[in-house]
């Protein structure tokens, strides 16, 4: 009995921590329409700032005040100003990915400011270690304080969001920004305020948690992953229910730790369920809650305008592009040294995994945060059943596709962020329960045999290029056919699709299975690169950079995946090129690594300006350039007629390059075709 009370009290104080974190999430979501994956990282930033102030001998209370009222709001203001304000009329996936970029930015930034090597960062709990005894269990004052704070925050926020005009205005801005303008409210100010508030709440939870857990960025960041479960109980909108969710979660976790001690005796020795399940409690809860959320009625929502561009690829050009890719890889791979060869091969395999997201997210608008997890299943299959035969790849595709079908079941009832979170929950579940089973993974790296005829590293890289081109072609072909159109239509209006006779359930299951199958193939080939399937590579967190870079490249483009995959691989490669150096007592290599971590973040943060990805942006600029030139060239002199028309046909894609030209390449082309001269001639003519 005493145990029970102790566990209950522990659970409640854990719940209070989750509640504070989750309410911050809910506030940013309801007032900005953005689910802030970086919430925990911002909390960590707040905690470090707090530590810094204490280190400068600022007393506790003023330090808390400065962090919550000055530092955190300033960070929030900056985030809104620089990053989030651009995110109007962008698709859901962009709104999910940009905070992921921010997350990586924060993870990279914090160790640069507070070097983990140079200090041990510890903050004492409030009131030190003093305790009261409640029902025989000792409870720290800090824990009680956390509970009280959670309650105050709950009541205060509810009043603010629903009782005050500023709160109403924030929600109105999410709903319809132009209309808010017409009402005379100031949407920009509302958004700034909402981000400031959200960051303050993040910092508050960071400070409260920092003394309980260690002050480590990644720990604090992923604490919030658990809070997601609580936030989702409140459907990201209702604060009271969020608190209920936090309570259930805290208690469940506490009881799980307290009572689930031993594996059932009927399990074989190397199968461990209990430890894993304990770790997975929040994730299981998230999954169950998402499934229990009542099926949203299909509702007509009217026509939505977005800045999204819908690509209409071309089979012939894409085929030529594929051939060019293989040719380029065949040539370039000859000049690469051993480790670079492997790194770029990794890039190609990652590109293939990202390609799995093109039909799913790019066409169908079904957001998945689990591509690497499916890839992991593929990797596992090829390690298990591969033996160098093609059957291994088949097994990888089939296993992933089947699991994909399973995961699509919640997808049938969920949309947008809920769907994304449920796939992330699936990823964590697989990481905690499957990837750590000794029965399946006796070591953390399973040996993998490459496909029979492609043993050498160079041959394997070319093989990867061939595989990417073929699957890319398949994806393009799907886009151009009825299924691709249907996916695109389903993204725009599920209600209209249903009333036209389309079975949404079946369509979603099909696209999930397709996507998972491609990811499984990619994962199997990725495992072949290092001839090792190492589980860490497929952990849940790894999904985030993969999705991020896929979107940066262009989520609706096959070539976007290629760009994304190569970019992701290139960060590691650049890291090796930079020579190690010492900066003011810091380890240079670390600094370089940190700065490199910033690169995906920066790429992600630019998405607000350019939501359709690198590939589209380059294409657009090329088109505009051409258009401008054509406009300048109102009446070209007779003799220039032929190069002009030649230039016209030199659109990137018409040369069969799946990747548009860089500006430099264009300059080269222009020189080759004497267009520079033409331009000069023309400008002289008009002057």
């Amino acid at each position: 009995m005493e145990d029970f009370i102790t566990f209950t009290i522990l659970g409640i104080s854990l719940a209070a921590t989750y509640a504070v974190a989750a309410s911050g999430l809910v506030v940013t979501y309801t007032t900005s329409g953005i689910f802030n994956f970086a919430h925990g990282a911002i909390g960590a930033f707040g905690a470090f700032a707090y530590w810094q102030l204490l280190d400068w001998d600022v007393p506790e209370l003023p330090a808390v005040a400065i962090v919550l009222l000055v530092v955190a709001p300033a960070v929030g203001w900056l985030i809104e100003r620089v990053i989030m304000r651009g995110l109007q009329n962008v698709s859901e996936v962009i709104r999910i990915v940009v905070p992921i970029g921010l997350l990586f930015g924060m993870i990279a930034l914090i160790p640069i400011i507070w070097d983990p090597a140079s200090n041990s960062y510890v903050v004492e709990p409030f009131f030190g270690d003093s305790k009261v005894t409640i029902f025989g269990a000792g409870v720290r004052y800090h824990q009680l304080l956390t509970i009280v704070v959670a309650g105050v925050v709950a009541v205060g926020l509810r009043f603010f969001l629903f009782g005050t005009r500023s709160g109403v205005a924030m929600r109105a801005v999410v709903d319809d920004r132009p209309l808010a303008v017409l009402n005379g409210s100031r949407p920009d100010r509302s958004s700034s305020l909402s981000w400031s508030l959200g960051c303050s709440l993040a910092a508050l939870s960071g400070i409260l948690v920092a003394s309980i857990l260690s002050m480590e960025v990644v720990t604090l960041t992923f604490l919030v992953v658990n809070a997601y479960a609580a936030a989702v109980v409140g459907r990201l909108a209702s604060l009271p229910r969020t608190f209920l969710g936090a309570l259930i979660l805290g208690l469940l976790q506490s009881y799980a730790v307290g009572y689930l001690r031993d594996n059932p005796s009927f399990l074989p020795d190397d199968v461990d369920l209990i430890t894993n399940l304990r770790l997975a409690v929040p994730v299981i809860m998230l999954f169950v809650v998402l499934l229990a959320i009542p099926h949203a009625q299909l509702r007509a929502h009217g026509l939505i305008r977005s800045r999204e561009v819908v690509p209409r690829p071309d089979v012939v050009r894409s085929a030529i592009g594929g051939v060019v890719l293989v040719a380029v890889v065949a040539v370039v791979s000859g000049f690469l040294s051993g480790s670079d060869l492997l790194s770029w091969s990794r890039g190609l395999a990652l590109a293939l995994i990202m390609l799995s997201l093109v039909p799913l997210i790019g066409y169908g608008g079904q957001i998945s945060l689990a591509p690497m997890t499916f890839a992991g299943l593929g990797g596992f299959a090829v390690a298990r059943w591969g033996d160098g035969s093609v059957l291994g790849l088949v097994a990888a595709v089939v296993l992933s596709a089947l699991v994909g079908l399973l995961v699509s079941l919640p997808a049938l009832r969920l949309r947008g962020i809920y769907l994304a979170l449920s796939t992330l929950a699936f990823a964590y579940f697989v990481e905690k329960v499957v990837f750590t089973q000794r029965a399946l993974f006796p070591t953390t790296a399973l040996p993998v045999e490459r496909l029979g005829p492609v043993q050498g590293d160079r041959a394997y890289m070319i093989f990867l290029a061939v595989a990417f081109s073929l699957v890319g072609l398949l994806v393009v072909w799907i886009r151009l056919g009825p299924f691709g159109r249907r996916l695109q239509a389903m993204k725009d209006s599920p209600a209209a699709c249903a009333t036209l006779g389309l079975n949404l359930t079946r369509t979603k299951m099909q696209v999930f299975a397709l996507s998972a199958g491609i990811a499984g193939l990619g994962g199997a080939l990725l495992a072949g690169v290092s001839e090792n399937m190492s589980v860490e590579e497929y952990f849940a967190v790894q999904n985030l950079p993969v999705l991020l870079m896929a979107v940066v490249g262009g989520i609706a483009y096959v070539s976007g995946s290629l760009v994304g995959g190569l970019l992701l691989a290139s960060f590691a490669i650049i890291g090796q090129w930079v020579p190690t150096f010492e900066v003011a007592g810091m380890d240079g290599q670390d600094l370089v690594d940190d700065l490199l971590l910033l690169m995906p973040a920066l790429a992600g943060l630019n998405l607000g300006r350019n939501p359709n990805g690198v590939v589209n942006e380059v294409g657009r600029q090329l088109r505009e350039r051409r258009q401008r030139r054509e406009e300048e060239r109102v009446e070209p002199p007779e003799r220039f007629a032929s190069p002009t028309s030649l230039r016209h046909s030199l659109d990137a894609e018409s040369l069969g390059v799946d990747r548009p030209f860089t500006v430099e390449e264009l300059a080269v082309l222009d020189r080759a075709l004497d267009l520079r001269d033409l331009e000069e001639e023309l400008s002289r003519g008009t002057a």
Partner: protein
Amino acid sequence: MALLEARGVNVRFGGHAAVTDADIDVEVGRVTGLIGPNGAGKTTLFNVLTGLQPCVSGRVSLNGIEITGMAPHDRAQRGLARTFQRLELFGSLTARENLLVAAEIPRRFGAPPAGLTAAQRVDEVVDLVGLGAFVDQRADELTTGHARLLELGRALVTRPKVLLLDEPASGLDADETAYLARLLRELADSGLAVLLVEHDVPLVMQVCRRVYVLDLGKVISVGTPEEIRVDQRVVDAYLGQEVP
């Protein structure tokens, strides 16, 4: 027996009764009107008929087969098609692609007419609704009028037996409305059953053979346009004095 029948339909939102004991018959070869003040429950009734809104009680049958509990796509497969009061186009697709999507959905009942591909059926409908000049424009860039015609076309391309139109003339200009009126009559003559919700009373009076009037969720009057026009309850609840 009418092609589409609703009997005793009730819908409640919280304490508010949006539709109460509504009986509706939609018959082949004619346009049936459904009019009533704002908030009378017309769109809600449409949602019940097409399966987007479950009803507390009541039955809906199509062609003698009960479809009350069926999913929206099953009903569509059996020949029910609709348009939406607030446009519900596939905004990022072109007008032609909007039609193609609808044409390409496999039909379980009633095979497509021999020899016509999806693309050919689309062309047919493009001519029928007069969208020729706009087929390659993105749907979210169309003017309201063209968008309405496109939605009508998208419903037609599925070769429905019953067509439910929710305010198809709202946002159309005079020429387009006149065109729509002609089109509706032609469609009815060719054997389609049409249920039309409209606030454009002259249009309703002109094309409908039978008109239901809904007020506060109840059917308060049924009859020919001539009968409706002089029904005092309808004049008080909906038409007002000045309408011809």
